[in-house]
């Protein structure tokens, strides 16, 4: 049961990140970001209890909520009808991400044995997958909303990996502050762009 839950969380988390990378529908992206954080909560090591994993998911969901509320209250990003058809760019980003995730899945057993023996295979696949998809998003998008989502994805992947290696209360507090400030910076960019667009 646990293995099934962990596998499902890893797959869902990666699919959410993949959806964020490929599509540009803000509501869909925000939802995918929230799902990503829930999956991280499931996979996060719980050797010291649920508290650390709970902090991660609360901070993550709060960051998501900050961005969601900003967009909703300002109407900064237009709501467009959802389309299943993928554009060439979306297809390219999706295929690149699939390629990266495949590499991660293939390399993870070796990485687990040689570099990160304290971690486990689920954490390694999800964390490295999220970090790489986040990096891909940072490199392929320039709109501030999507760059911020990319940053949050990248950082959440790294935090998951680091959480399996070492625990420090100070570091966890700093990560929480960084995540929230990045989300606030995202909200700041959204409002600012709207102000400069409006005559």
């Amino acid at each position, binding site marked *: 049961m646990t293995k099934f839950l962990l596998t499902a969380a890893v797959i869902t988390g990666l699919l959410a990140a993949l959806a964020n990378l490929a599509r540009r529908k803000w509501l869909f992206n925000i939802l995918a970001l929230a799902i990503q954080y829930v999956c991280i909560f499931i996979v996060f090591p719980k050797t010291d209890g649920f508290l650390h994993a709970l902090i991660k998911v609360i901070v993550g969901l709060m960051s998501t909520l900050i961005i969601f509320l900003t967009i909703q209250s300002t109407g900064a990003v237009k709501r467009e009808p959802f389309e299943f058809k993928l554009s060439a760019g979306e297809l390219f980003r999706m295929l690149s991400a699939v390629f990266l995730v495949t590499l991660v899945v293939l390399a993870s057993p070796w990485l687990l044995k040689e570099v990160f023996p304290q971690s486990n295979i689920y954490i390694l696949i999800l964390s490295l997958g999220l970090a790489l998809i986040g990096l891909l998003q*940072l490199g392929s998008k320039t709109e501030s909303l999507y*760059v911020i989502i990319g940053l949050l994805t990248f950082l959440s992947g790294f935090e998951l990996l680091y959480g399996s290696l*070492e625990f420090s209360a100070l*570091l966890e507090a700093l990560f929480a502050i960084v995540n929230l400030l990045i989300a606030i910076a995202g909200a700041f960019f959204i409002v600012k762009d709207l102000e400069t667009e409006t005559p």
Partner: protein
Amino acid sequence: MINNTVIIWILIPVALSGILALLQRFAKLSTAIVLVSSALLTVLAFILPEDLILSIGSRQIAFADSLEIFGRVLKITKANLSLVGGIYLCVFLWNSLARKLETSQWFNALSLLIASLWIIALAVQPFLYASVIILLVAVVSIPLLSPRGSRSGAGVLRYVTLQAIAMPLILLSAWMLSDIETAPSANALILRATVLILGGFAIWLALFPVHTWLPMVGQESHPWTLSFLLVVMQSSLTVFFIYFFEEYAWLRNLPNIWKILRWAGIGTIFIASLLLSFQNQIRRLLAYFYLWETGYALLAIGLAQDGGLHYLPLIFMPRILGYAGLSYIIVKLEHLEPDFDGNINNLKGFFHRYPFLSLGLISTLLSLSGLPILASFPAKRHLINLLPWSGYGMETWLILGFAGALIVTFRIIYALISPPEEGQTITILVPHKEEIGIAIFCTVLMFLFLISGFFPSIFSGLFKGILAPFKNIYLFN
């Protein structure tokens, strides 16, 4: 209760920045608070004696030098106070003109916060946790670099992104280092940790090819704000980099590591100079001179075992003066000439209209380029003299690097003294529109350039203590 160095130089400034954020609309009040507090912090940092006991009349106040937060220790000893004083000196200098130069209304609050964050980065133990603080500095800088009323620039986003990418590299190296300590002969671990540390620092220091955010931010952001962020970042990161070599014997004993650093420094100087020589936008000069100065800082670290580090304190004040001068003059030129598009070639006739600003600009560029009798010359000359014989290799690249900075300087001088294109004659020889403040600033600046050039020890004495925490780095084994 408050006689603790961490409370005085970190917690109080952080609390003050919170208060200043609430007072941001009261320009005079918030400026007065930040000026008084940063001046006090600077003076106290420089006058506090070695034993951290301050005598006022018959009273003696002993200062504790560490504080535990979340199970980790923040520590500011006397050895760190020179840099702390230097950082708050920058806060004081930049805030004294910030409102006049129309920077963001958050500048007072955020400059104090950013200064205290850099000090946290240098005080936290284990010091590798500083990597998250450095990312925090980048995020906190966003409202300053991209204030409301302007469109979000791609440069700021790229800056934050690159800082976020650097952070995991350093943190993972920290985790690997704990294994190296238990198995010091583990070559694979040493190689991985070295790659991660050098990669992380290359991104932090904006070395080629991850320097691209610098000219972008230079173009998008207010020059006065940017120069503050760059001067504090460069000084802190340089010292932080030296900490690694101080702490880890395996790193400083790696074969060819010093040679690699020297070549990285010379390569950075050359690339910065090449980019400078082709540059047309005056705002981007600040970004490329930052890169150029980073090259010299790396060269000084690379020459650490030959005594190169001794010239790092010598370069601090010239750098502060150079960045402040360049950014002030750019802001003033843009204010006085609203039609000026920032293109160097459109500076024609400016010397006759704005003689003080033009002379200030020329002397700043010549000083940053390291020309004799000006501020940067002594440190740069000493560093070049320390270079080991490399069959003309390093010397050739360094000369080419020097040439690029001179090319842009002389291009600007040529543009400034050329007559304006309309009419091709100098019709207005009487300077106009230049306020008395500009004349005073530029005169004092040129005077300080000359004083620093002739008597470098005057200011280097202030920052001499920056190297006090470092003893192991000079050891060969």
